[in-house]
């Protein structure tokens, strides 16, 4: 068998790896520019503050759910747990008269408790994550409404005691400028998440469990413990998201939150997290989150009616996920090297060595040899093009011939069957 050490051309290499990671950020930039040109007053600082403000309520839970999806699990409860925790914290603040900080801690603790519950059910009782988290979604909606006695909870506004917590997410200077300080917190949580995923045992085992849970288990990974951890992480980020929601939207209504989880999962998938598990990054998720929030703030800015807003959001989400599937398919495709590819690769190698010679000649000042090298390069390139075209045509003819043969054989077979 011929030596098949085939070098991919730089273009092919970029096409496979670079494009994969450049797709999502490119989509974000394109969307932002699109709304800037067609929307009203989009390229302004207040709009930037609004985009960031609209990213919190899916941002934090999206970071948490990335961990879960990488393990090939899913968490449908993150949205409702976030809102249930927020309303329980608000009830503690307003009805039970707890001070601000314990109320905020309660939000985190309640969310983590739900995360722990999810984790236990999935890892120990081996229940399907979809069902468990669906149940938790309903339970948390109910618990939130029960504890709050079905009353909405209004958090303190700036100026009231406890209103300082809003400054964690949006700081207003004395002369009225708004500074989106919550972006710092979102960034911090993203950095922590990234470090966890890329540089710790937790992260490595998360990817391992997602790629092949049985192999991980047989290799000695305590799958039960690590699988439970990712759901606790999802719960914790839901708690932070609950505080963020209260800081931005002030009033928390009971039994809300359904729908947020799907947007967070969409954000994670747009950012490159595969629903099949084993792939995903935090930064990809962040890009996905900002794509969702740019959409959410940009579509109203275009004076589109509400039905068109929801329509386009869905179209873009499907488009983004299709891109993700195309991308995963391309990188994991098993490439069968055809004769054309082998030939092309060896000719490209020859041409690049000729080019190196040319560069050497020109720098040495030998004009004649340089001219000769240049003409050889042109000849070689032309030969490459012609031969590749001929080989491709041959391949196509071969394929047609084979298909005709197959069809003839098929017909023969059917005839044979009929005679039987």
């Amino acid at each position: 068998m011929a030596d098949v050490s085939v070098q991919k051309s730089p273009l092919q290499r970029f096409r496979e790896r670079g494009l994969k990671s450049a797709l999502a950020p490119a989509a974000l930039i394109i969307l932002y520019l699109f709304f800037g040109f067609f929307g009203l007053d989009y390229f302004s600082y207040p709009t930037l503050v609004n985009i960031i403000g609209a990213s919190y309520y899916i941002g934090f839970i999206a970071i948490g759910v990335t961990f879960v999806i990488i393990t090939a699990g899913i968490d449908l409860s993150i949205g409702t747990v976030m809102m249930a925790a927020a309303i329980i914290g608000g009830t503690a603040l307003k009805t039970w008269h707890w001070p601000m900080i314990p109320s905020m801690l309660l939000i985190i603790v309640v969310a983590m408790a739900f995360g722990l519950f999810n984790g236990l059910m999935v890892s120990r009782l081996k229940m399907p994550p979809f069902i468990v988290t669906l149940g938790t979604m309903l339970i948390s909606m109910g618990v939130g409404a029960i504890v709050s006695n079905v009353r909405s909870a209004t958090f303190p506004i700036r100026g009231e005691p406890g209103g300082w917590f809003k400054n964690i997410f949006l700081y207003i200077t004395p002369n009225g400028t708004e500074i989106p300080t919550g972006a710092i917190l979102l960034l911090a949580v993203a950095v922590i998440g990234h470090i966890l995923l890329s540089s710790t045992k937790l992260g490595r085992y998360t990817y391992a469990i997602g790629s092949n849970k049985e192999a991980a288990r047989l290799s000695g990974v305590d799958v039960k413990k690590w699988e439970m951890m990712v759901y606790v992480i999802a719960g914790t980020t839901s708690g932070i998201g609950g505080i963020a929601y209260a800081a931005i939207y002030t009033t928390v209504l009971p039994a809300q939150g359904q729908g947020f989880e799907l947007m967070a999962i969409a954000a994670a998938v747009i950012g490159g997290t595969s629903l099949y598990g084993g792939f995903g990054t935090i930064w990809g998720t962040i890009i996905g989150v900002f794509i969702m929030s740019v959409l959410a703030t940009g579509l109203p800015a275009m004076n589109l009616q509400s039905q068109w807003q929801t329509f386009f959001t869905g179209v873009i989400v499907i488009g983004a996920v299709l891109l993700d599937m195309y991308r995963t398919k391309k990188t994991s495709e098993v490439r069968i090297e055809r004769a054309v590819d082998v030939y092309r690769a060896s000719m490209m190698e020859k041409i690049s060595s000729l080019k190196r010679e040319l560069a050497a000649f020109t720098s040495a000042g030998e004009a004649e040899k340089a001219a000769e090298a240049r003409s050889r390069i042109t000849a070689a390139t032309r030969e490459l093009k012609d031969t590749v075209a001929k080989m491709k045509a041959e391949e196509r003819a071969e394929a047609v011939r084979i298909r005709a043969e197959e069809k003839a054989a098929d017909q023969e077979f059917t005839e044979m069957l009929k005679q039987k």
Partner: protein
Amino acid sequence: MNAVRRTGMLLVAALFLVAFAIPAFANGAKESGTSQGAAATSKTIFIPMISKGFEFQYWQTVMHGAQAAAKKLGVKMTFEGPPSEADIQQQVQMLQNAMAKNPSAICLAALDTNSVMDLLNQAVSRHIPVIGFDSGVPNAPKGAIYATAATNSYAAAGLAADHMFPAIKDKIMAATASNPVTIIDFNQDATSQSVTDRGKGFRDEMIKLIETQGNHPASDIKVTGNPAYIAADSPTSGKAVIIDVVVPASPRTTDATNSAQAVLNRVQADHILGIFCSNEGTVNGILAASNDGSSLPTQYPGLVVIGFDAGAAQKAAVSKQYFLGSITQDPYMIGYDSMELAYKAVKGEPVANIDTGAKFYNYQNMNQPDIAQLLYN
């Protein structure tokens, strides 16, 4: 995992569930206690109330009014509602379950009449009186709804226009085709009866005021925005005064806030004089988009905002004069009257519609007792 450990895990999971459910028992006992009331010697009258949702504080006040009436009349009642005003399917299910319990009467605030049409026909054939409340059950089959206890939403929103107009009258009169002005009619959806009635009531009253006192004929006015709010007889060709009806992508606070931000972003460019928010949903959106209202007087001086209903956040905004004021209904009497109407219908007495009315409140009058009792937290 061996059997003992598995049972152990199941016990832990069950413990979790019980822990989560304990609040339910604590509260549940409290809830049913108040509505049991004096047991009648004959069959106890059972009246379920199906509301449009539990989202807003408003419904809690309706429930308290109904519970007070139920206690006084010795009626057994339940108060239910879907999680949000968009969950039509869940409300239909609740109504079905209620009818299966063989009630004496039903109080209903339908999210969508067509979805409950079959159940309404069933109620007619089973001789179960249905009393509408809040937005009632518009376009119900004949004889299904015995009476309705509601606010006249159309008139209530007209009241808002009556109060907004004097504050912006000068700018309206100065408007021309080359210097147009805009008034925003901000509604959380285009489907529920009470919200659409309010949107249309504001629109029509504002058009009337502009024509009669604003020195602009109908040919100068243009109604634009969500098509559900543009009637066949609405002026659509004017260029001087524009009434823009804005509906967010969904009633959720997050979408309402994004819509509100988009509106506030064009206050300067479109010369927006005033914004009317026709329910708590859109009020919460405007508040979230303006730092709980505090940036309204500083960043948008002269912008007049009028809200609807109450709630802690809105009351704070009204008392601080971020809003010019708001329209309040009488949710307590809506609940009370509808329960009483249902009781009378069961007894066979004649019943008629009750308009529970609406009032305008601002920082000056909101603490007077007759207004304060209508404003819930």
